[in-house]
């Protein structure tokens, strides 16, 4: 078990270095996309600045600094997920089009090979933006950065696991590309607004099916008033959700039929 995990981590590391060197080969494009995405995200500060200025108090129990924290965490988590597992959002298309055949032939776990095979260049901008935003908008402390680093990792794992679960639905119901795209959009949108603005079924969804609450809102509670029990819940939920997505993909894979698509990976 331990050897298997360490082999997977080594594989992810190799893919990461390979993808990074290929991304920075086109340096100008890399920098432009990174800065472009960071500026893109930064425009939302303007929206919240105007909203808080107009309201003159907290919105849904969140102050300006709280919103900046969830933005920083959502941005860096999403960025890390897409930098390391850049192929995850394309999972449904890969399964549906038969591109999975290439990965099935490799002597490594299929899911890890598929999702780590690509990186998103602009996601570096997301990742960096979160760190800069945290540095500029939060009262600085070691515990803040430590918790932030940990929650970026759990957030990235949850974001990827949501993508895997939604993408793997393709095994059972045909092309789930739209559903997977929706899952990503919903997760992002539920992560960048105060949790308390959502009620009823949506509140339930963000704690279960699309656990956006555990990507940003639970970490915010932890940062504002640390509770070991809450941290444990976060770690358990992340582990269980990731394990479920891994298992779900495996179950689906048994139903996969090759599309006889001829392709090459260079």
């Amino acid at each position, binding site marked *: 078990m331990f050897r298997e995990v360490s082999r997977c981590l080594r594989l992810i590391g190799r893919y990461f270095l390979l993808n990074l060197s290929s991304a920075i080969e086109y340096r100008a494009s890399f920098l432009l996309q990174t800065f*472009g995405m960071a*500026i893109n995200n930064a425009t939302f500060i303007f*929206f919240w600045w*105007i*909203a808080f200025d107009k*309201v003159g*108090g907290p*919105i849904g129990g969140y102050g300006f600094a709280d919103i900046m924290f969830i933005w920083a965490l959502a941005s860096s988590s999403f960025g890390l997920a897409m930098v390391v597992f850049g192929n995850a959002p394309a999972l449904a298309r890969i399964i549906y089009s038969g591109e999975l055949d290439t990965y099935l032939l490799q002597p490594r776990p299929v899911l890890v090979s598929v999702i780590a095979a690509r990186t998103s260049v602009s996601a570096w901008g997301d990742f960096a933006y979160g760190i800069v935003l945290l540095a500029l908008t939060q009262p600085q402390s070691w515990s803040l950065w430590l918790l932030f680093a940990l929650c970026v990792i759990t957030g990235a794992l949850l974001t990827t696991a949501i993508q895997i679960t939604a993408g793997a639905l393709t095994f059972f119901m045909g092309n789930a590309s*739209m559903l997977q795209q929706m899952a990503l959009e919903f997760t992002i949108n539920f992560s960048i607004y105060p949790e308390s603005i959502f009620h009823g079924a949506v509140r339930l969804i963000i704690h279960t099916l699309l656990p956006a609450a555990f990507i940003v809102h639970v970490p915010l509670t932890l940062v504002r008033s640390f509770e070991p029990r809450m941290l444990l819940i976060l770690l358990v939920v992340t582990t269980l959700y990731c394990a479920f997505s891994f298992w779900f993909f495996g179950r689906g894979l048994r139903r996969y039929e090759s599309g006889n698509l001829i392709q090459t990976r260079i």
Partner: protein
Amino acid sequence: MTAAKARKYGAILGVSLRSGLMYRGNVLGGLLFYALFIFVFFSLWGTIYRAGGVPGYSLPQMIWYVCVTELIVFGCRSGVFGQISESIKSGAVAYELNRPYHYVFYRFFSALGGIVFSFLFYAASALALGHLFVGPLPNFRLWMLPFVLVSIGLGAVIQFFSYLCLGLSAFFIEENRAFMFIYSKLVLMLGTFIPVEFFPGWLQTVVRYLPFSYITWAPARMAVDFSWGHVASALPLQLAWAAVMIALSLLLYRKGVRRVNVQGG
């Protein structure tokens, strides 16, 4: 425009309308995202108004405002920026230069069908979602509709030709995506998400001299808080910005096309 030219561009428009109908799946997918955005803003503004509200707009006005602004943003998504940039970068533009039409007007009429089709779909969704979340728009009368539609149409023209100009910038700077990112965010921030009246005074003054708010804010404000004063100030400025963007796209095309080197093969 002569009758022959009108027939020519009419035929291009006809093809794009049929194409829009054929690929309606794209619009249906977009409808889900449109509904998501409206829902999120409904939840956000609902919370804000329950806690006290914002002077100037009531909650129904605010939600209808977002319905109209997002209708314009979603309805105008024609892909013209990507198509033009790609055709310039790949050199495929060379095949379109010697055809018997003006490149800029061809792009406009070939996208118009899809845009009209999208607008119809998103308008139906805007009406449904607005009514579902906050009920009918207060104080809106049917006779106001033509003014609002003209304003929405002018906003769409400014938006379309701005994207076209950004696409044509590939003649001069190949990696032009950053411009598009920045432009689309300016449109979202300066009028789409929040009405211009919410900005601090100095910013309102700056924004009124820029084209961005005339794409979404001017029509949406007209729909939710109709006044003859707003019609008289907004429509001429929208018309002027539409003319500026059309002229700029013709100029960029004329300058840019001189830089194309066509090689055989």
